């Protein structure tokens, strides 16, 4: 608005027109400060070549779509594995796993042990819960089954959806293995909970322990070390460390730092998706999208050499950078919106079992983090080449 203040006799239209044709340092400063005018200028330039504008936006949108789809799947997968960890721990800070390890069975949406839990004698005051876990071949297909002493004898706990799958109702009978149990429908866990001896009869001895410290030790960050000293088992606060030998105590509360065990666990499983072929392919897509942005801007620079030559010759060399940054920002923001929407439609129609709206929203948010860097570098590369040249050569080369 500096222009209008310094030239009060001009109408806004004339002032705007004048500012476009008579750039001065003051006008340049006003242009830099005036986002709306820069945006209008950028849109006018972009729509001078509407096909290229649409194509480059489409290309970048497709690349962003690929990234958002993969991130959505990654977050969805990590979310279900994280929920399964909560099912295992039930608030206990220590998890004593077998030496053969534990694995997440995505088909059953449950953590399962790969071997029998180590022998464990906890110090006085500590409580340990032994859980036998595995896959049960039910009449409705394979289901995850956990058995421990917390479940009352003669009872099986199911979620509503599992009960529907098995065609049983609350209070009704269900035969698990050779044992007749009474159904109790509660919660929404995909896991079938039974007494320990029933689970052992069905899935064998594969198991783990979850350990609670005495109330006096609650809140301490070295519980793993204390139990390790008492039992001789190694301990770790990092879920990436695999159990070996007799077993491993995961200390899910200890370790300090800003990242919790659950968050590391989630990141570990999210990384499995992004590190797969799916993740690799989407990253290549993002690189190709960036190439499209750069080549599109390079072509634009090439075609507007005379315009930039005139600007540079009257001292507006640096302002060219602002023009391109705004053009780049417009293209990337539109591409981001289009790509994120396309990704939402794609994941919710093609992979509804894995993706959710919240996972998509998180993934779209994560993809937004790439945008500023891509938009800035995408604009800087072509403009840098332009600014290397003298105005006279820009004017001479232009055809």
């Amino acid at each position, binding site marked *: 608005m500096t222009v209008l203040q310094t030239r009060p006799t001009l109408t806004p239209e004339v002032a705007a027109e004048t500012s476009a044709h008579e750039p001065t340092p003051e006008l340049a400063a006003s242009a830099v400060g005036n986002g709306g005018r820069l945006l209008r200028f950028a849109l006018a330039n972009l729509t001078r070549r509407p096909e290229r504008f649409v194509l480059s936006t489409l290309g970048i949108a497709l690349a962003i779509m690929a990234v958002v789809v993969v991130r959505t799947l990654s977050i969805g997968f990590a979310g279900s594995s994280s929920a399964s960890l909560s099912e295992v721990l039930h608030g206990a800070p220590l998890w004593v796993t077998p030496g053969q390890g534990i694995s997440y069975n995505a088909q059953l949406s449950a953590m399962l042990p790969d071997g029998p839990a180590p022998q464990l004698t906890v110090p006085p005051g500590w409580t340990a819960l032994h859980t036998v876990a595995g896959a049960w071949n039910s009449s409705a297909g394979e289901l995850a089954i956990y058995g421990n002493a917390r479940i009352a004898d003669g009872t099986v706990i199911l979620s509503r959806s599992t009960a529907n799958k098995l065609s049983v109702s609350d209070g009704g009978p269900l035969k698990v293995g050779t044992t007749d149990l009474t159904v109790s429908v509660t919660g929404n866990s995909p896991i079938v909970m039974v007494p320990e001896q029933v689970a052992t009869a069905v899935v064998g001895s594969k198991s783990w322990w979850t350990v609670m410290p005495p109330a006096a030790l609650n809140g301490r960050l070295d519980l793993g070390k204390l139990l390790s000293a008492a039992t001789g088992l190694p301990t770790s606060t990092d879920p990436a460390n695999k159990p070996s030998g007799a077993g491993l105590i995961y200390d899910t509360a200890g370790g300090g730092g800003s990242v919790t065990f659950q968050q590391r666990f989630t990141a570990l499983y999210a990384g499995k998706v992004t590190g797969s*072929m799916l993740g690799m*392919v989407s990253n290549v897509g993002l690189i190709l999208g960036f190439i*499209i942005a750069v080549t599109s801007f390079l072509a634009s620079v090439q075609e507007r050499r005379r315009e930039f030559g005139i600007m540079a010759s009257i001292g507006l060399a640096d302002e060219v950078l602002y023009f391109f940054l705004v053009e780049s920002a417009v293209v990337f923001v539109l591409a981001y919106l289009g790509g994120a929407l396309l990704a939402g439609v794609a994941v919710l129609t093609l992979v509804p079992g894995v993706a959710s709206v919240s996972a998509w929203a998180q993934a779209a948010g994560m993809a937004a983090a790439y945008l500023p860097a891509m938009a800035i570098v995408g604009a800087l590369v072509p403009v840098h080449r332009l600014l290397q040249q003298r105005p006279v050569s820009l004017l001479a080369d232009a055809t």
Partner: protein
Amino acid sequence: MIRRGLSYGMLSTRRRASTLLLPMLTTATGAFLVVQVFSLTGSVKVQASAFGNKDQFFRATLLIAVVVLLVGVVEVAVCTTRTINQRTREIGVLGATGVSRSPVVAALMVEPIVAAFGGAVCGSILAIVVDGVLSATGGSSAEPELGPTAVGVTLAVLISIASAAVTSIVPSWHAASRPPIRSLSHGG
């Protein structure tokens, strides 16, 4: 006349072969990934089964590979807009000398089709060679499958050509429809 347009397009494509390298490369990258996903269907499905819903994850992998191929082909269309801009005056001369729109469009479409086809074929061949070398040297435990590979190559080539044609026809049509006087006065 369209045949002459195609011949003219082939001549100018040969003359401007160096400018086609980047779009060919991006298309080849997309085609390479599509063929890889198809040829390693078994191992991709095994990897997908680790994430739970095997079919849905495989479908997602396929979708992403095709999307990346489309991104590669969009570069072909972006290159076409640049070419058309550089040849505006030439298009104006053709129009001024009485050449109708169809042969001009045909001539302009040769370049993107050749780039897309060449890129898809190069990418597919590279994918087959990489699979063969890795399989022969034991560099990969996954065994490439012949049937899915053929499907992958066919899809990569067809999608590349179709999407290059669809995305390039609009700028080519606009350029060929412009009055010759405008093309000659504004041409670069």
